[in-house]
């Protein structure tokens, strides 16, 4: 009989693969006709992913459908097998097929599905097997396949809601307040706020009642009306479900993290806290805590701060992407720009003088898979008049790129030109200038990401560091320094503010690219164009941070153990230890270490401490 079941399941698998193949053929033909440049895998993986979810459902629900269709239930019940053995014979080939499909999914996931997956692998894995087991448990509700299928779909929807409810209850029981984590986010991002081993038990104890009740009820399965079987099932289900629910709440309670919170220290020493479980933001100063009307998510590397405002992107609302402006004086939040519903906004905002600049791209494009050309628009927001200028980018060439960043701006007598680079190949960055009409002009290349400081464009090739001045018509080389090392300047922390504050020093790192290890910290003196090593006698694993000034900070990190070890201040060639840290995690369920221009914020087991920079004086927030 096992052979028959394997044959049947194999046949079903072939049908399924054939359907997927046909859908893909149709998709391929459509793409050939429309001359789309999308990659084949981009459409294959989501189809496959939903296809095998359907397969899990079908394998479970069709456990006895073949016998029911042939009216052969009585015949198979007369076989010399116990009910449990019969069930095992029925389930085993389907379980093996499920595992095979799951392994195939894992292979495809790591072959590239990871970047285009719409369901997180953790959520998918749980839902895939849960759907199979729940479908099995409802395979004998009625003799009618359709009724069983509809029942499973209802029950499975309820099951998903139950998972959410269990976490909500655990969250409230733990005293973290109301749980508002969007259901969609759980599905897409996985249940990342709970320890994986606990999530496993939460799901397990919610699925077990279905499957144990079914197995126990099936021990007396016969040809009497389904209602008799269902009554027996429900009698067993109610107590097991109550027990399972209590256990799953217990495991959710045990495994749930402190709410993930992010912090932002403003330049006027106020602390903005955002709770990602209930999407509340509040702002602390010395004495008070004020709850903000809307949630905001400022980050040191993507938000722009000036004397009065912080500008940031907001992705929190469903399908609405907007730029928010937070007034640091009166805590007022307003929306500066909302994207077209079909589009997405870049996360990073940048500012030059009175203009905020950002980019808008089509939904479905990601910074990692997009192709330059049809999708991007330049958005300029005037911070004084609030006027918005939106222009489509007009490219000369089309490159496939994985990252692109705006790194500077220069002004000629009659126009403002934005400098951006695109990573177009290994050790090759294309530099372009963009005018306010969106025209993109190629102006050069660099081996590593370029910089624009003190009105000088700094690039490098295999042999030299090259300093050039930009004018409307040409680039003029000012200086070349021979440098064969693999030097990466540290442009990241310049980006939010593109204003032309005169700088004396540029900091950089010399890298051993084979070992992916920083070999040296370097300083480039912009007054004499000399590059010097900063003398250090410690391990250089960590991050170099520069906040638009001549001072830099180096955070020494033990990446293996996820620990912050020390903080150093660098001023020209001088380096000074500011503080050593013990047991401060770089990030974790209730720990974080964030460095901002005015100070550092340390969250250690939920407790938050804030220190100003560069003096490391503790900033007190009474209500924190």
């Amino acid at each position: 009989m096992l052979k028959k079941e394997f044959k049947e399941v194999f046949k079903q698998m072939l049908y399924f693969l054939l359907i997927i193949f046909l859908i893909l053929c149709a998709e391929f033909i459509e793409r050939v006709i429309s001359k789309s440049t999308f990659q084949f895998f981009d459409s294959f993986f989501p189809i496959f992913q939903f296809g095998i979810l359907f397969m899990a459902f079908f394998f479970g629900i069709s456990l006895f459908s073949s016998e029911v269709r042939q009216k052969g239930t009585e015949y198979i019940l007369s076989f010399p097998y116990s009910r449990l053995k019969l069930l095992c014979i029925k389930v085993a080939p389907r379980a093996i097929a499920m595992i095979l499909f799951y392994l195939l999914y894992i292979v495809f996931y790591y072959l590239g599905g990871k970047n285009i997956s719409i369901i997180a692998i953790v959520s998918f894995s749980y839902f895939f097997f849960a759907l199979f087991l729940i479908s099995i448990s409802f395979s004998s509700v009625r003799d009618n396949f359709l009724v069983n299928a509809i029942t499973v779909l209802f029950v499975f929807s309820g099951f998903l809601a139950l998972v959410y409810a269990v976490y909500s209850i655990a969250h409230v029981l733990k005293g973290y307040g109301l749980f508002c984590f969007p259901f969609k986010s759980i599905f897409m991002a996985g249940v990342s706020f709970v320890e994986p081993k606990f999530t496993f038990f939460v799901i397990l104890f919610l699925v077990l009642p279905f499957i144990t009740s079914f197995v126990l009820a099936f021990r007396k399965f016969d040809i009497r009306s389904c209602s008799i079987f269902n009554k027996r099932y429900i009698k067993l289900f109610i107590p097991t479900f109550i027990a399972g629910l209590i256990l799953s709440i217990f495991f959710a309670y045990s495994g749930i993290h402190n709410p993930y919170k992010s912090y932002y220290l403003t330049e006027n020493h106020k602390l903005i806290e955002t709770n990602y479980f209930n999407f509340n933001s509040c702002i602390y100063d010395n004495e008070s805590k004020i709850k903000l009307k809307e949630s905001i998510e400022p980050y040191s590397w993507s938000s722009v701060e000036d004397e009065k405002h912080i500008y940031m992107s907001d992705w929190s609302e469903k399908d609405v992407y907007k730029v928010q402006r937070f007034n640091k004086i009166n805590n007022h939040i307003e929306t500066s720009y909302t994207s077209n519903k079909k589009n997405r906004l870049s996360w990073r905002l940048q500012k030059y003088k009175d203009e905020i600049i950002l980019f808008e791209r089509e939904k479905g494009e990601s910074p990692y898979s997009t192709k330059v050309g049809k999708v991007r628009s330049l958005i300029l927001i005037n911070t004084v008049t609030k006027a918005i200028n939106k222009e489509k980018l007009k490219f000369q060439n089309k490159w496939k790129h994985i990252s692109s960043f705006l790194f500077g701006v220069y002004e000629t007598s009659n126009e403002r030109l934005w400098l951006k680079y695109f990573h177009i190949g290994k050790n090759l960055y294309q530099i372009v200038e963009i005018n306010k009409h969106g025209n993109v002009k190629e102006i050069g290349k660099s081996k590593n990401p370029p910089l624009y400081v003190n009105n000088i464009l700094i690039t490098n090739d295999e042999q030299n560091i090259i300093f050039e001045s930009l004018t409307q018509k040409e680039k003029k080389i000012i200086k070349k320094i021979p440098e064969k090392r693999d030097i990466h300047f540290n442009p990241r922390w310049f980006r939010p503010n593109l204003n032309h504050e005169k700088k004396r020093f540029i900091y950089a790192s010399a890298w051993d690219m084979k070992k992916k290890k920083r070999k040296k910290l370097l300083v480039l003196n912009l007054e004499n164009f000399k590059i010097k090593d900063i003398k250090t006698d410690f391990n250089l694993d960590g991050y170099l941070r520069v906040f638009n000034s001549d001072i830099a900070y180096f955070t020494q990190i033990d990446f293996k153990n996820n620990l912050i070890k020390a903080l150093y201040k660098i001023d020209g060639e001088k380096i000074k230890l500011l503080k050593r840290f013990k047991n401060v995690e770089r990030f974790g369920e209730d720990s974080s270490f964030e460095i901002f221009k005015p100070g550092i914020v340390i969250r250690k087991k939920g407790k938050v401490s804030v220190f100003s920079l560069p003096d490391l004086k503790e900033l007190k927030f009474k209500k924190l």
Partner: protein
Amino acid sequence: MINNEIIKVKNLNINFNKHMAIDNLSISFNKGETVLITGRNGSGKTTFLKCLGGILFPDSGLIQFGNKVSKRKIGVISDKMSLLEDYTLEQGIAFHSEIFGIDKFNFSLINQLNLKYERKIKTLSAGERAIYHLSLIISQKPELLLIDEIIHMIDAYIRELFLEALIELINDVNTTIIMVNHTFSETGRIPERILIMEQGKFILDEKRENLNKKIKKIITHKEIEEDIPVLFKKESSIQKEFYIYPFKEEFNSKYKYDFQDINLTEIIKSFIGGCYAKKRV
């Protein structure tokens, strides 16, 4: 279990949505016995048989099989039972042989009907299906054969084949046969033990040879004495028929009636008729 017993049923109960189909039933069957279970429609015969075949699960009670009876040696054949209809006869034989561990399949019955092996089971007529199914079961060399209302739905030729096969089985394998049937004209020669079921219980359990002695018929124009136990009374404008059960030898000397012997069909009819009469009351 006593040595010769093949099945022992103790306090068996089965409900169908509050309707008691089998009511605290206890009985045993011996090796090699041929048993006929009959009774009016809905009395629980098929339920009982399906319970013995493992198709139905009792709500309570116990069904014990003799030590040497393997589940592979139990055959169930029913008028309503479908096989795996999408299979061809050949596939069905291979499948059944694998499940029941049949080494040597007995093709004789199928060959007598000249059935083609590549035909699908669903294309067989009721009679052909019965013979095909019986072939599958016979090949198991069953120690226990449970037959549910097959005879009435097949034609005379196939019926003859079917009964001959049963007799051969009884002779060769000493199979215990328990059959549920409503017609007895042709099967009447087979059973040794007659069981009549009513409302989930056996109201008659007699060896066939004793049954003729225990039930008699009187035909008269008048009412009979009250101390004669009447199982069933049939009345017409011309005469009255009284079925007497249990009949005692002393009745012959005490009363001057002609106590007539009756055949099996009439015996069973009288019992069923009695059940209906009681129900009417």
